[in-house]
């Protein structure tokens, strides 16, 4: 009975705590919605699945290469960008991948159209950023149908022969096996031609895809599907980031993302706590005492900003040093760029911290509001998972957060080995966020002080 009385009292108190209710019930719903949307399952539709940007450099310029571009453009998982190969903006797909603008690039070399016309395997080069493993799987999975659509027969022929190597067919028997397969290939072509001419119904199972799926999962589970596919397509594959060691590159890329992601998220939490000292001063009465000092009222917010910013810089420095010691994070490769970027990131996060503190009427309100906004910004901005796996609209929305810009810039420094000049746009945006949040905090603060 007493236990129930105590529980009922606590329930009553809990139900009156709006912030607690918001965190307990609202936040999980919001985060589940964000995660669902990020993974492309929002609304249950497939249109929202994230597309991977593929830079395509067409040096062939024939109808065959145009067909390939069109097929790639229709692929569900790709967003094709045609690289300018002439004029002032001329560049290469390789450069675009190396700079981190694209996770993958495809070079259609001169002679592609001729090779397709001759029934040969067309020469293509795929440039990859090995740090973006998920994207490479998506690219490989979408290249296959696109290439089949554009140059199907030559590729099918090639894949049939290549399959002997994938399944480690004994080398001594390969010539004989090739001859058998060539005969089978001719027979299959005749079969399809006859079927098309006779208008016969499709064999059972193929229309629904049942026959295609049978045994497919086993094959996939045994193989590195992305790697096998690129081999099968006859692609020349070049990893243009990470120094050629793909496994190491993937590890470094993951660690760089993890350290930067955690750094930015925890920075926001830490700085909101620092900004919260403003509320502590108010509740403790010292804020009024400070306001009673001539000229100090204007300096209070500036002082809080400076304090919070210094703490933020120290937090970042400690975390990056730890990243260097434990994960070999390349923090000394471009130290000036890293320092300038971290200054801007800390300033932007500080702006948020101070703004939250000014907006909030109580410590509890600050904690509720900041937890909600920071977790949302972290999810939207790519602290937890790469934005590339998210739909376009999600990525667009993500770049309204400071997290996304900070993550882009840190990735550019740690992974793509870019310099200060390359990340100036991101730094500019972060400083603009800092200026905007500080201005908003100042305006609100001034208005409240005049009350």
């Amino acid at each position, binding site marked *: 009975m007493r236990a129930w009385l105590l529980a009922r009292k606590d329930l009553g108190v809990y139900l009156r705590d709006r912030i607690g209710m918001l965190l307990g019930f609202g936040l999980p719903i919001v985060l589940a919605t964000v995660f669902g949307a990020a993974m492309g399952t929002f609304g249950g539709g497939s249109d929202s699945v994230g597309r991977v940007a593929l830079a395509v450099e067409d040096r062939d310029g024939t109808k065959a290469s145009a067909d390939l571009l069109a097929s790639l453009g229709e692929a569900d998982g790709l967003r094709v960008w045609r690289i300018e190969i002439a004029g002032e903006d001329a560049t290469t797909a390789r450069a675009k991948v190396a700079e981190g603008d694209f996770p993958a690039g495809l070079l259609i070399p001169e002679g592609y159209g001729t090779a397709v016309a001759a029934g040969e395997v067309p020469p293509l080069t795929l440039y990859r950023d090995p740090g973006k493993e998920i994207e490479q799987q998506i690219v490989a999975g979408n290249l296959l149908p696109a290439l089949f659509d554009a140059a199907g027969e030559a590729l099918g022929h090639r894949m049939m022969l290549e399959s002997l190597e994938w399944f480690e067919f004994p080398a001594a028997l390969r010539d004989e096996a090739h001859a058998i397969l060539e005969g089978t290939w001719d027979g299959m072509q005749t079969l399809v031609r006859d079927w098309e001419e006779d208008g016969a119904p499709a064999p059972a199972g193929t229309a629904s895809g049942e026959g295609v799926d049978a045994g497919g999962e086993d094959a996939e589970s045994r193989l590195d599907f992305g790697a096998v596919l690129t081999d099968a397509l006859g692609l020349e594959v070049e990893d243009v980031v990470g120094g050629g060691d793909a496994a190491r590159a993937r590890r470094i890329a993951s660690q760089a993302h993890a350290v930067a992601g955690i750094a930015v998220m925890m920075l926001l939490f830490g700085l909101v706590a620092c900004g919260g000292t403003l509320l502590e001063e108010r509740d403790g009465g010292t804020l009024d005492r400070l306001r009673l000092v001539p000229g100090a009222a204007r300096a209070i917010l500036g002082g809080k900003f400076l304090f919070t910013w210094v703490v933020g810089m120290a937090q970042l420095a400690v975390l990056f040093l730890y990243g260097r010691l434990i994960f070999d994070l390349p923090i000394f490769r471009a130290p000036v760029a890293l320092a300038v970027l971290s200054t801007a990131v800390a300033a932007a996060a500080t702006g948020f911290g101070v703004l939250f503190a000014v907006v909030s009427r109580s410590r509890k309100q600050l904690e509720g509001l900041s937890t909600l906004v920071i977790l949302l910004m972290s999810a939207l901005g790519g602290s937890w998972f790469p934005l590339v796996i998210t739909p376009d609209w999600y990525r667009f929305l993500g770049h309204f957060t400071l997290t996304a810009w900070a993550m882009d810039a840190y990735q550019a420094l740690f992974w793509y080995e870019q310099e200060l000049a390359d990340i100036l746009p991101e730094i500019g945006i972060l400083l603009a966020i800092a200026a905007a949040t500080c201005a908003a905090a100042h305006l609100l603060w001034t208005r409240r002080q005049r*009350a």
Partner: protein
Amino acid sequence: MASLPPIVVQTRGLTRRFGSLTAVDRLDLELRAGERLGLLGPNGAGKSTTIRILSTLLRPTAGEVAVLGLDPIGDGDRLRARIGVVPQELAVYEPLTGRQNLAFFGRLYGLSRGALDAAVAQGLALAGLAERADDLVSTYSGGMKRRLNLAAALLHAPELVFLDEPTVGIDPQSRNRVFEMVEALAANGVAMIYTSHQLGEVERLCDRIVILDHGRRVAEGTLAALQRHPAVARRGAASLSFAAAEDAARAAETLAAAGVPCALREDLPDLEEVFLALTGRALRDGGAA
């Protein structure tokens, strides 16, 4: 005829509303240099709101205010340099020492190195905290924090001090030290406005008293004048004081013989006097006496 000291605080029709609540309602107030004004009133009477307006922390909704001849809103910075405020809250930093607190506030007021050292030492001595000056405030007793709270408001030698219930929650020894600090200020000619629920404090420390209720001034005057206020029921009795108990007994007999009814009542100390007599006036929380 000697001229009156100048007016240092003057309000006319001072009003402050918070939404539908009128905290201060058309208040007229006047304080002259060197005067000690007590603001008395129940909770919510408008005492703290009045002090916040006079000390530049709050804008009035209506009315006129002049403090030390300055407008608290328009001349805020100039006025703040000349006033001291002792808030109800313990507005000191607990993670700092007493000395660090005073030095911090002194620096904010722009005291030069020499003046700062002197002001801090004087503040610590006045508050009876010299021996615990380098201890963290978080280790101080409530009384020590209150005294530090008061000392922090006096570092820049203000001409006018507002004290908002400066003795809340402290022991009689500390309260006594606060009284001594206030009396020392008064002896130096510092004008002050003192709010309290403790009527005895106001009676002891203030020259003049204003009683507020529902934001309005309901009475004003010296204690003697208020005791004769028309709204106060008087018992119609009077008392005579005698130096010796035997004299009092003889006088009572004489009056009774003359047909004048009278009662003899011994003049006993109040409980605080008993307490201080038994425990002494020395501070008990580690501070210097």
